[in-house]
């Protein structure tokens, strides 16, 4: 059966109504993430098997409070539901309603009903309503709303079978409007309905509104909402059945007294950040090492066991390391999203916004920017993916833009070797280790750049979307492991497939450039090296190192390195550093590997001290002095603090902003900043 014939069911509801839990219950692992055409909003869809074996397509629409859109997410919902020709227009619309907050949630439901859409009401979180002592006369509610009402508790899977059963049948659009809007724009609505007699008055009103044909759009909207709420209030009074409260609210409020306390609130938040940071840094390191070992072993095994040739080389040295380079990020992504999902599920994330909003807003950021920025110290990839929680488009773009300026863990090996090279292992004032101080300054430098850049962007960026913070503070809930697991899976899949292909492609291009070169120097590398070594004693290993170094120096990458030498000379860099800058464009830590190849250090023996010794003895041919002086070393460190030397970051920015504009701007900005500040550093210390 083709997808077209499958019944399409859309889920819609307020944020925090448990819509995602319901989606997870209906689809389980049969989920896929795509894009809504043309916008940066993720589309989650999946297949659900009904009790009679029928397969239906489920689409999880973004959370919304009203059919009148106030954000990009909400616009997606309006665009789909107000256009019968839309490819995603549903056969059945399930409106998920939070039973513990029926009044506010019914606004959206009655709007959907009045549009003439085939609706089912899923009265969710009935357990929460129970706890605050509220029940409903469901029969009366069904009768008054003119729609099927199914009571569910999606977090534990109650009512799912009943809902599936209901989805087997076609939903009849029955009864009149809940609230008749004809009077709000009588002439225009009547005219519209003359032409489209099959539509409802509310449908007509929404079409007129979205086409901008109403003169007093805002006032009509305000009247509609106010009068509709009035009617909802009366209905809720009618159907409400008071019960004895189990007392959940006071419990939630007691937690808030501590978690938003002026001292404990921040202490706890900092501790949470510290745990996340530690986890990404420490827990992720062993699976990452494992992936690293497996892929380098696989690459070595392929090289020795397959017949020599270009395809073996491509496979063993281009493709396999490329895939390894993608998979290596998965442990960090999984760990970060386990935490983020826990914070979101429990309701703590809303408190983070509450605590941090005022501080972050000064810099054009959002309370929710804190988590991505801190995660950026481990790795910008999961950090940028974590900006998804920021609803405001401008604040989200600024956060994505500045996050890679935080010094990530891939910069650490580069910093380590350069500090060891040029900074003396001495103590200042008797207690502060110089090398440690420099390392700390590099991290601080990145953080200051984040704040300043964010502030500049805040002033530069124009947006029609006004920044406001009007959001529900959800009650605390125990996280569901199923939802956490599915979030991790979703994020890992998204990264692997969407950013992964770009990372692999660029890795292969860089591999080709580093392996091949103009002329026949590379083909004759061994003979040429041997010719220079005539009359000296050398071991097999030394010869191999010299050949590897010779090959790299004659490759296209070296040509690039030499070509950019005039440009990087003012920063104090020679063409050998130029080669490392080009190769480490794929990933910063490649700098160390490239340096060891250039300085002919056997790759198996990538010991930092060896590399340090070789680099440390490099002589500058112009001055006759040592090449890696303090100004050169500092300039190079500053360069790595700012430069966008990471294709994975580029790929993920592309994926998250759904276009090349932001990744290109980001690269130009960061590289420009790196160049100017390195130039400044070099001249200041020379």
């Amino acid at each position, binding site marked *: 059966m083709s997808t077209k014939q499958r019944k399409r069911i859309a889920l819609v509801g307020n944020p925090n109504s448990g819509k995602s839990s319901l989606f997870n219950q209906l689809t389980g692992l049969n989920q896929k993430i795509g894009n809504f055409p043309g916008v940066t909003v993720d589309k989650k869809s999946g297949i659900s098997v009904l009790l009679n074996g029928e397969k239906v397509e489920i689409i999880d629409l973004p959370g919304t409070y009203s059919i009148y859109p*106030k954000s990009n997410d909400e616009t997606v919902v309006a665009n789909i539901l107000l256009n019968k020709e839309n490819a995603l227009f549903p056969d059945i619309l399930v409106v998920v309603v939070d039973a513990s907050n029926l009044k506010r949630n019914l606004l959206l439901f009655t709007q959907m009903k009045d549009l003439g859409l085939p609706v089912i009401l899923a009265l969710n979180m009935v357990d929460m309503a129970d706890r605050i002592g509220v029940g409903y006369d469901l029969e009366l509610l069904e009768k008054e709303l003119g729609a099927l009402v199914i009571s569910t508790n999606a977090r534990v899977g109650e009512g799912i079978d009943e809902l599936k059963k209901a989805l087997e049948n076609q939903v009849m659009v029955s009864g009149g409007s809940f609230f008749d809007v004809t009077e709000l724009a009588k002439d225009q609505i009547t005219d519209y309905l003359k032409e489209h007699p099959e539509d409802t008055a509310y449908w007509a009103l929404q079409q007129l509104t979205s086409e901008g044909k109403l003169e007093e759009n805002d006032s009509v909207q305000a009247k509609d*909402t106010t009068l509709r709420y009035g009617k909802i209030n009366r209905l809720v009074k009618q159907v409400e059945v008071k019960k004895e409260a189990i007392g959940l609210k006071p419990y939630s409020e007691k937690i808030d007294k501590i978690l938003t306390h002026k001292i404990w609130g921040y202490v706890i938040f900092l501790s949470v950040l510290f745990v996340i940071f530690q986890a990404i840094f420490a827990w992720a390191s062993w699976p990452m090492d494992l992936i690293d070992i497996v892929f380098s072993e696989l690459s070595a095994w392929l090289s020795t066991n397959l017949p020599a040739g270009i395809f073996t080389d491509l496979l063993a040295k281009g493709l396999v390391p490329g895939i390894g380079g993608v998979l290596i990020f998965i442990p960090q992504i999984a760990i970060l999203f386990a935490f983020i999902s826990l914070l979101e599920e429990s309701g703590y994330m809303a408190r983070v916004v509450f605590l941090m909003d005022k501080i972050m807003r000064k810099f054009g950021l959002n309370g929710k920017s804190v988590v991505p920025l801190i995660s950026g110290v481990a790795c910008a990839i999961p950090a940028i993916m974590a900006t998804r929680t920021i609803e405001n488009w401008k604040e989200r773009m600024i956060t994505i833009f500045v996050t890679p300026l935080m010094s990530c863990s891939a910069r650490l090996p580069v910093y380590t070797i350069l500090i060891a090279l040029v900074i003396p292992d001495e103590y200042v004032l008797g207690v502060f280790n110089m090398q440690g101080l420099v390392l700390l300054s590099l991290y601080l430098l990145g953080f200051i750049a984040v704040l300043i850049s964010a502030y500049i962007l805040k002033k530069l960026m124009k947006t029609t979307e006004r920044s406001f913070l*009007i959001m529900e503070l959800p009650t605390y809930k125990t996280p569901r492991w199923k939802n956490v697991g599915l979030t991790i899976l979703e994020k890992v899949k998204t990264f692997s497939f969407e950013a992964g292909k770009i990372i692999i492609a660029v890795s292969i291009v860089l591999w080709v450039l580093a392996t091949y070169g103009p002329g026949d120097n590379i083909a004759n590398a061994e003979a040429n090296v041997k010719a220079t070594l005539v009359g000296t004693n050398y071991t097999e290993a030394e010869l191999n190192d010299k050949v590897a170094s010779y090959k790299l120096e004659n490759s296209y990458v070296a040509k690039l390195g030499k070509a950019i030498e005039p440009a990087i000379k003012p920063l104090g860099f020679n063409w050998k550093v130029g080669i490392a800058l080009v190769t480490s464009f794929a990933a910063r830590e490649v700098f160390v590997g490239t340096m060891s190849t250039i300085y002919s250090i056997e790759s198996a023996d990538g010991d930092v001290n060896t590399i340090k010794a070789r680099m440390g003895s490099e002589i500058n041919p112009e001055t006759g002095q040592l090449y890696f002086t303090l100004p050169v070393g500092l300039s190079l460190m500053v360069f790595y603090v700012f430069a966008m030397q990471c294709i994975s970051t580029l790929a993920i920015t592309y994926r998250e902003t759904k276009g090349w504009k932001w990744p290109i701007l980001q690269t130009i900005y960061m590289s420009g900043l790196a160049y100017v500040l390195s130039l400044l550093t070099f001249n200041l210390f020379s």
Partner: protein
Amino acid sequence: MSKAKTVGDLKPGENGTICCFKDDHLSLKLLDMGCLPGTSVEMKFSAPLGDPICIDVEGYNLLLRKAEAHTISLVE
């Protein structure tokens, strides 16, 4: 000349009834969230730095910035 009291002026624990809105654009969002003229709201607590604030709207907690709270006038 006394300015009308707003939700932003409420102290923790104080109640007020919404009368009207000073910002048309924001009012549409606030209406969606159930802040209607005639609705009673209670100021619960503010963030440690005084902004944003948390108010109770008919049984649920709503977070909003102080500046936004000042656009909601209260019945005298």
